[in-house]
């Protein structure tokens, strides 16, 4: 019973995703690229960098990168916390 429910849910999600993939816009032809064209056109003037990807990562969407660094920091702290040396009264 439980397994059947999971299977139905899985098939449903799979069909959903494939439906999405087939009804996307054609590959290789972004329909709205105003934001990205702005990045490509203005990276050299505004950020004075040649690499548009780095300009997006650290300038236009720098806050995302701060969040990303935070995620990595959280994972490191989490792993260190799990593998920390326990005091004897805790084990």
């Amino acid at each position, binding site marked *: 019973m439980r397994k059947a429910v999971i299977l139905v849910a899985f098939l449903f999600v799979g069909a959903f995703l494939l439906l999405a993939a087939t009804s996307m816009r054609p590959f290789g032809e972004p329909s709205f690229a105003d934001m990205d064209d702005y990045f*490509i*056109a203005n990276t*050299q*003037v*505004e*950020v*004075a*960098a*040649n*690499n548009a*990807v*780095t*300009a997006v*990562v*650290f*300038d236009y969407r*720098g*806050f995302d*990168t*701060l969040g*990303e*660094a*935070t995620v*990595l*920091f959280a*994972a*490191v702290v989490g*792993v*260190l916390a799990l*593998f920390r040396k326990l005091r004897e009264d805790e084990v």
Partner: protein
Amino acid sequence: MNTGMSIIVRTITRLVYGLTLVFGFYVIMHGHLTPGGGFQGGAVVASAFALLLVAFGAAGIKGRLNHHLLQTLEEIGALAFLALGFVGIGTAFFYNLLAGSGSLLFGQLVADAQLLPLSNPGVFNAGGTLPLMNWAVGLKVMTGIAAVVIVMLIGARKEETE
């Protein structure tokens, strides 16, 4: 089992280790000019550490790479990144204050930026806070991943011997 792998692996590691480090730092430093950046370069450097760890074993690197030191360095990297975000808070958080300001610290413009789009050989001393952020993130990523790898390897080894 803690002594690492065969002599062939260890010799190759000694050769490749330095090269990997140099390449990683190159990727970090040239992030604003060529493909790459702090995250990618940091991962390359961390892979060099991981290589050491695999080849020499956890015991072999004891004392050379200590995860307390790595953790401290990671926090410094993270704080530096956050501080670089605060630099521009007079205008808005994360405002790139140094870009094109003409200052000595990465303040140059890319050559003839008025004639866009233009390919050029690249100016190293440009990009404002970008290269600084690349360094901060690079430091953070290389030490963070190295710390995770070391701690997990030592922890998992304990598992096997118990």
